[in-house]
């Protein structure tokens, strides 16, 4: 049998998805399910003085209406994921009965016969608000004496942290050259094409709740619900449906709606379904990115970095869903460069906007933006080639494991496990045709055209702990069933984990099925986030499959009366050295070891119950890496950017299914391009969201995304037996930095600065006209 790992096996999922037979949450048959709709706060910061639900309750077709106060028993805090002892936390309640902290926060829920009627009823709810002053930016949040996002707070600060290595202050003081700048990266959303959804059914006979949830983390959701409902974990079954229409981070978080809907289903003894619509998604699904970086870099005359100091203002939004994003940011700033002295200061603060948490890239694009913009500035300052400055500072291939000197989000010392950064950057520049591109740039610049080249390199901590698990079982129909706790949102788990299991078992994929995301099928799990599943569930599947092979071989050898070493598999038959006359099918093996004969003793030497399981807990995060390069042309009159060429070099260690890895990287790139040029979840000064439809919030289409040349190198991770790393976010992370670098490079003759992502046409033109004189001079020359 050929090895499945490393093969571009076509996806098993595709057939049903291409024929309209996918089973997304809203497609599931839930007879008699009622529809839910949430009334959401229309104010960024307000107190509910009075709420009148009577007219809504009287509307024909309405079954029930609850305010937060009506569901007092479940108004318990939704815990932040990553904590810190100094974190000033404010309870995020499922549906707060008192003070509200962002536009979109749930205020009341209507349960009705149809979603149409439920929405009618929302219009009949009368809320009397006391409107409070709102905070709509980190600058406003940190302004002394400014308004407070939570009225009982002393300040808007969530946490102030500093990480450092070496003596940064001294190194900066004595550095021959110093440059500093302020950069801002804008808020954006996940925008999975399927919004969030939750449905639930209560079984009075067993006291059990079955919950269908589009979550990326069913076991995490069950754990939270178990605590809030004070129910045993076994009485709560959370199922992520077989098909979930994208995740990208926001669906990995846990929300008030996930608490309210099952509880209401239990109260009403009726199935209830809530499908978030896009309008709700814009104001209630968690977002990310908004950060301000004030970065200072000290370097010598050769462009060697001596010290980096970065002060980061991070917008937690209205509540702290965890410190995962800012702590990833702080650890990502150094990137692939040797930096002897580093100091990173985090100022995370509360605002009256949708809470923030991971969105594809998760804190990394911001860090890479700050660092890589500065690498270009260093080169500019010294009159050096920006690629050369990077090469001089890159960590070399023989320096792994490389200790950076600060701590990663998982609590371990920030250590890069493997990689070859110079080769990645070199390969990227070769494919761009870097030298030719520079020559072309010079030639066209003389003709008055604005061509720019942008480069960005990054590292990505991925494959985080604590663990992920898998079970492998020979079913009573003679098929091998692999069960994962992890839930997929389009990554192709049914295919990828069958490939891994196939290699572990030495049995053809055709006889292997994969099931995911159902807490009743496997007891423990964490979830799909932070590009972690291949590096955690992958090794678990491999190990459980290898264990199963031993069990199957032992059983077959025992029944065939031979040595286990003599057993081979052909199709679903275990045979004595390939002799099918002396063979057993998997079904026959299941009949003996699993089904058995009621009341009859097992044959001697047979172990009952062909099931194995494995949990893999990585020692620490693995580090994927990559480099992007772009060549763009900017129209200085309109501010339009045309991407002429784009190259991605990517290293996620060994790959299981190359085609699917390419898909992850290219999809991530499109998201990154959105962050680089288009997506802005803008709020006004009162905290009112300004982009709440796809007319105001632009997602890239096929017309905006250029053709990308993608290549891989493979530096296996020593941290897991597959040697794999994460691939889901690498396309996203350096794209804003790459585009911004290219645009500023294009505009260099005009002296225009790009200090903000996304870089939009209007801002480009404004940056140019900040220096009208320069434009006139260039034109005249």
């Amino acid at each position, binding site marked *: 049998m050929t090895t499945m790992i490393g093969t571009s096996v076509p996806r098993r999922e595709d057939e049903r998805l291409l024929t309209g037979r996918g089973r997304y949450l809203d497609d599931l048959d839930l007879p008699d399910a009622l529809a839910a709709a949430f009334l959401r706060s229309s104010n960024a910061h307000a107190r509910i003085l009075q709420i009148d639900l009577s007219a809504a309750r009287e509307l024909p077709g309405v079954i029930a209406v609850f305010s937060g106060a009506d569901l007092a028993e479940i108004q318990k805090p939704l815990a932040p994921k990553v904590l810190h002892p100094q974190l000033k936390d404010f309870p995020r309640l499922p549906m707060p009965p008192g003070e509200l902290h962002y536009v979109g926060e749930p205020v009341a829920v209507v349960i009705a016969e*149809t979603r149409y009627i439920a929405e009618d009823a929302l219009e009949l709810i009368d809320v009397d608000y006391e409107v409070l002053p709102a905070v709509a930016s980190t600058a406003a949040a940190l302004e002394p004496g400014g308004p407070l996002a939570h009225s009982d707070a002393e300040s808007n600060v969530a946490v102030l942290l500093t990480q450092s290595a070496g003596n940064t202050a001294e190194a900066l003081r004595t550095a021959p050259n110093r440059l500093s700048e302020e950069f801002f990266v804008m808020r954006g959303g996940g925008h999975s094409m399927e919004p969030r959804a939750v449905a639930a059914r209560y079984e009075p006979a067993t006291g059990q709740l079955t919950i269908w949830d589009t979550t990326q983390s069913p076991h995490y959701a069950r754990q939270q619900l178990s605590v809030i409902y004070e129910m045993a974990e076994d009485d709560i079954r959370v199922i992520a449906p077989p098909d979930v229409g994208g995740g990208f981070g926001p669906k990995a978080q846990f929300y008030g709606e996930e608490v309210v809907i099952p509880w209401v289903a239990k109260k009403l003894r009726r199935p209830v379904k809530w499908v978030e619509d896009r309008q709700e998604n814009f104001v209630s699904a968690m977002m990310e990115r908004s950060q301000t970086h004030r970065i200072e870099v000290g370097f010598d005359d050769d462009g060697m970095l001596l010290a980096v100091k970065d002060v980061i203002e991070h917008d937690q939004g209205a509540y702290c869903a965890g410190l995962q994003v800012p702590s990833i940011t702080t650890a990502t700033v150094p990137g692939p460069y040797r930096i002897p002295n580093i100091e990173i200061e985090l100022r995370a603060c509360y605002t009256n906007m949708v809470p923030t948490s991971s969105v594809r890239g998760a804190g990394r694009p911001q860090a890479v933006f700050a660092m890589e913009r500065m690498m270009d500035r260093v080169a500019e300052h010294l009159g050096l080639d920006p690629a050369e400055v990077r090469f001089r500072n890159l960590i070399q291939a023989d320096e792994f494991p490389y200790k950076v000197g600060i701590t990663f989000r998982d609590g371990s010392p920030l250590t890069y496990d493997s990689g070859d950064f110079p080769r990645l950057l070199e390969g990227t520049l070769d494919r761009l045709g870097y030298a030719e591109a520079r020559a072309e740039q010079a030639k066209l610049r003389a003709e008055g055209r604005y061509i720019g080249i942008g480069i960005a390199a990054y590292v990505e901590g991925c494959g985080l702990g604590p663990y992920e698990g898998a079970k492998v079982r020979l079913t009573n129909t003679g098929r091998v069933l692999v069960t994962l706790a992890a839930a997929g949102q389009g990554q192709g788990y049914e295919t990828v984990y069958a490939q891994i299991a196939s290699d572990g078992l030495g049995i053809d994929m055709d006889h292997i099925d994969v099931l995911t995301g159902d807490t009743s099928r496997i007891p423990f799990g964490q979830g799909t986030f932070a590009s972690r599943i291949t590096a955690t569930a992958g090794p678990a599947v491999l190990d459980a499959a290898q264990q199963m092979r031993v069990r199957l071989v032992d059983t077959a050898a025992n029944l065939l009366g031979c040595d286990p070493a003599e057993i081979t598999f052909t199709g679903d038959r275990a045979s004595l050295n390939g002799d099918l006359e002396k063979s057993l099918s998997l079904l026959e093996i299941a009949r003996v070891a699993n089904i058995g004969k009621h009341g009859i003793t097992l044959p001697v030497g047979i172990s009952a119950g062909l099931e194995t399981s494995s949990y893999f807990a990585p020692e620490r995060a693995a580090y994927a890496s990559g480099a992007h390069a772009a060549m763009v042309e900017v129209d200085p009159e309109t501010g339009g950017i045309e991407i002429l060429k784009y190259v991605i070099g990517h290293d996620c260690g060994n790959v299981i299914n190359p085609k699917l890895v390419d898909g992850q990287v290219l999809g991530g790139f499109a998201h990154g391009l959105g962050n680089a040029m288009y997506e802005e979840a803008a709020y006004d000064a009162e905290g009112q969201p300004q982009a709440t439809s796809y007319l105001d919030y632009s997602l890239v289409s*096929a017309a905006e995304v250029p053709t990308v040349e993608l290549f891989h190198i493979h530096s296996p991770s020593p941290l897991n037996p597959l040697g794999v790393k994460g691939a889901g976010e690498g396309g996203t992370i350096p794209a804003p930095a790459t585009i911004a670098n290219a645009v500023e490079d294009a505009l260099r003759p005009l002296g225009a600065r790009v200090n903000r992502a996304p870089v939009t046409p209007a801002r480009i033109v404004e940056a140019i006209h900040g220096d009208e004189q320069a434009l006139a001079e260039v034109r005249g020359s």
Partner: protein
Amino acid sequence: MPDVDTGHRITGTVNGAAYDEVVDDRMTLADFLREKLRLTGTHLGCEHGVCGACTVIVDGAASRSCLMLAVQADGTEIETVEVLAEDGELNRLQAAFKKNHALQCGFCTSGFLMSVTAAMREGAIRDEGHAREVLSGNICRCTGYTGLVKAVLEAGE
């Protein structure tokens, strides 16, 4: 539960099969297909006509089913993603999607298939630029469009 005192009887065909149903005035075509006919391959991604996940073909024209009322479909011929496979096999376009990894989560896929199907009936897909234009009325958040462009070029030549 129907709205008060209304309801329109509508007849027509979906994927060649005749239907005869009573719908509320305000029910959208998308909800009609999904809820009444249980053709759940048509998805709702934005309900304001931008994402394209709900695209179906109405009397030959690719249309957003979230921006049409069910009652407006009275007397029309509608095609949805469920009609594309031929004798249980993926058709040429679907097979090209699979081959080129033009889908990941699959939520937007039906809309893409219907948009491209309508475009291919208007003529061959000339080149990459044309393929991108044909695809530009639908949003995919997973793939970055590379596989979609390849699939359309392959199936549309």
